[in-house]
């Protein structure tokens, strides 16, 4: 049986942990100061950070279930990293508290100030009550937590098995669970992002909204995982485990999700463009004028076209550091994308009607994602260091390792 002790990530990662926590704490203090003076802006920026980092957490949970369903060497080598990502869920729930308080005190979403006879409020009834909105989010988090908790529990059990039959049985249990759980997961993500992001503009709606985030968060998750894998790939124990082919496979998945992201986004745009109805087009009109249009073009070019053309090349996908560099770039674009969805939406404070990009952009939009991100990374690395970095007792572990060394 394999020796568990030598499969932990190097202690050197502690260094990043301290730095991340320090940077995060400073940014959090700055943000808290800003929140005192401009509460709505601070909570908007917090929502940006929450959606971006929470997206990686929830994306990790989704990809974790996906790899149980599909199997494959890529899933075996990144499984523990995905689990560490999913175990940041308590922090994400904690990061939701300021938003919940903001909704309850009616100081972040413009819909909390709409008159009761507004069509968006009258027809949706209790759905648009702050207490019910917060209760729904509690249910989403409870469901995510059950999925994360069970998969994590079985993983720990699998690490403790001493024969292939027990290990196989646990793997099968996790795979059987992941099927129906993935369906529930997609529905929960859809409901969650409709509540968290789409209601920013209460009069606007899009039916592909949930899938946009399912795909976008999976892309965030893979980009982030590739960065972690590339960092670990030349240090023990991962230098003996990860091979070019693993990165090639992860790169292919990044390519696929880059395309899916563009496909869903364009579908949404084309349907609204073709329908040409005032209540739908207003969302895009806001995002095409006053400087926001440039952000849209940046997203088309650098969230889609550039990564797409780069990832088409086989040689690029097989080089860990190159792929990780692109991963960081895509993560930055994910943040820009989230900003493009969140920032131009209507606000409670006056003076923001048709606000230009420069007028809407605040230093808090940088402070909040850095604050959540620093603490998130501190938490994540701590989780990553707690367990062996690969599922050593998994029945497919050895074949997954040899897959990486092939061509």
């Amino acid at each position, binding site marked *: 049986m394999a020796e568990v002790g030598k499969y932990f990530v190097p202690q050197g990662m502690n260094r990043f942990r301290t730095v991340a926590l320090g940077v995060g704490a400073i940014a959090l203090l700055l943000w808290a100061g800003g929140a005192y003076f401009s509460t709505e802006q601070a909570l908007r920026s917090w929502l940006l950070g929450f959606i971006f980092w929470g997206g990686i957490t929830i994306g990790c949970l989704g990809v974790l279930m996906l790899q149980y369903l599909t199997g494959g060497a890529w899933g075996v080598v990144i499984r523990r990293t995905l689990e560490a990502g999913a175990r940041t869920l308590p922090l994400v729930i904690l990061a939701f508290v300021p938003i919940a308080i903001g909704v309850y005190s009616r100081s972040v979403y413009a819909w909390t100030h709409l008159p009761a006879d507004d069509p968006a409020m009258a027809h949706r009834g209790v759905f648009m009550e702050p207490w019910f909105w917060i209760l729904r989010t509690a249910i989403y988090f409870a469901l995510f937590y059950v999925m994360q908790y069970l998969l994590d529990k079985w993983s720990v059990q699998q690490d403790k098995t001493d024969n292939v039959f027990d290990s196989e049985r646990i793997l099968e249990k996790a795979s059987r669970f992941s099927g129906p759980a993935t369906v529930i997961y997609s529905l929960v993500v859809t409901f969650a992002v409709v509540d968290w992001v789409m209601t920013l503009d209460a009069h606007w709606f899009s039916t592909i909204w949930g899938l946009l985030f399912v795909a976008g968060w999976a892309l965030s998750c893979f980009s982030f995982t590739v960065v972690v894998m590339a960092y670990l790939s030349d240090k023990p124990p991962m230098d003996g485990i990860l091979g070019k082919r693993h990165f090639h496979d992860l790169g292919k998945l990044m390519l696929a999700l880059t395309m899916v992201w563009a496909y869903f986004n*364009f579908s949404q*745009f*084309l349907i609204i*463009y*073709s329908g*040409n109805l005032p209540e739908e087009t207003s969302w895009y009109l806001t995002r095409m004028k006053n400087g926001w249009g440039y952000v849209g073009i940046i997203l088309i070019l650098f969230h889609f076209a550039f990564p797409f053309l780069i990832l*088409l090349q*086989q040689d690029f996908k097989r080089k860990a550091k190159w792929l990780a560099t692109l991963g960081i770039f895509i993560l930055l674009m994910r943040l820009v994308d989230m900003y493009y969805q969140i920032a131009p939406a209507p606000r409670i404070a006056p003076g923001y009607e048709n606000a230009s990009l420069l007028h809407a952009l605040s230093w808090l939009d940088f402070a909040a994602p850095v604050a959540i991100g620093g603490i998130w990374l501190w938490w994540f690395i701590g989780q990553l260091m707690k367990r062996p970095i690969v599922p050593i007792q998994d029945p497919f572990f050895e074949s997954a390792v040899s897959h990486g060394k*092939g*061509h």
Partner: protein
Amino acid sequence: MFADFDMSKKIYGIMAEFDTATEMVDAANEIRLAGYTKTDAFSPFPLHEIDEALGIKRSILPYLIFAGGITGLLTALGLVYFVHVLDYPIIVGGRPYFSLPSFIPPMFELTILFSAGTAVFGMLFLNGLPSPYHPVFNVPRFALATREKFFVLIEAEDPNYDYEVTRKFMESLKAQEVFDVPE
């Protein structure tokens, strides 16, 4: 069965039979190191190692597919531009004649169609298929290449080919058996 078989006839190449994939890959490595370039290998299942062993370069097919995709994209753009702007301009839903978002779906579809077509037909072309006749089938035991045996071939067209030398070299590779492949 091979009534017209005649040793004085032209030889297509010399083929060696092996029992295992490892033995064949080892032999293929020696063949490459001996300087032979017009070679081929046959196995019942794909063997990734053989590309390296025989020095087979990566196919140019991906580049052809990319070019095919770009051609499809531009063809579709040309088609819809010709139809909607030049030949029969008609206002649809108050949008301009050149309304790019509505053109993207056909552009996307033709990109896929042309790249998939290039992939399939380019693969067949680069593999020299369809090939109704191939001399290797003149060796009766070659039928086992689809079942359990592994074969390596040096073609007579190879610049280093010399019947006596090459045949002796092939016999030195611990092959199960060495065959002359009649043209």
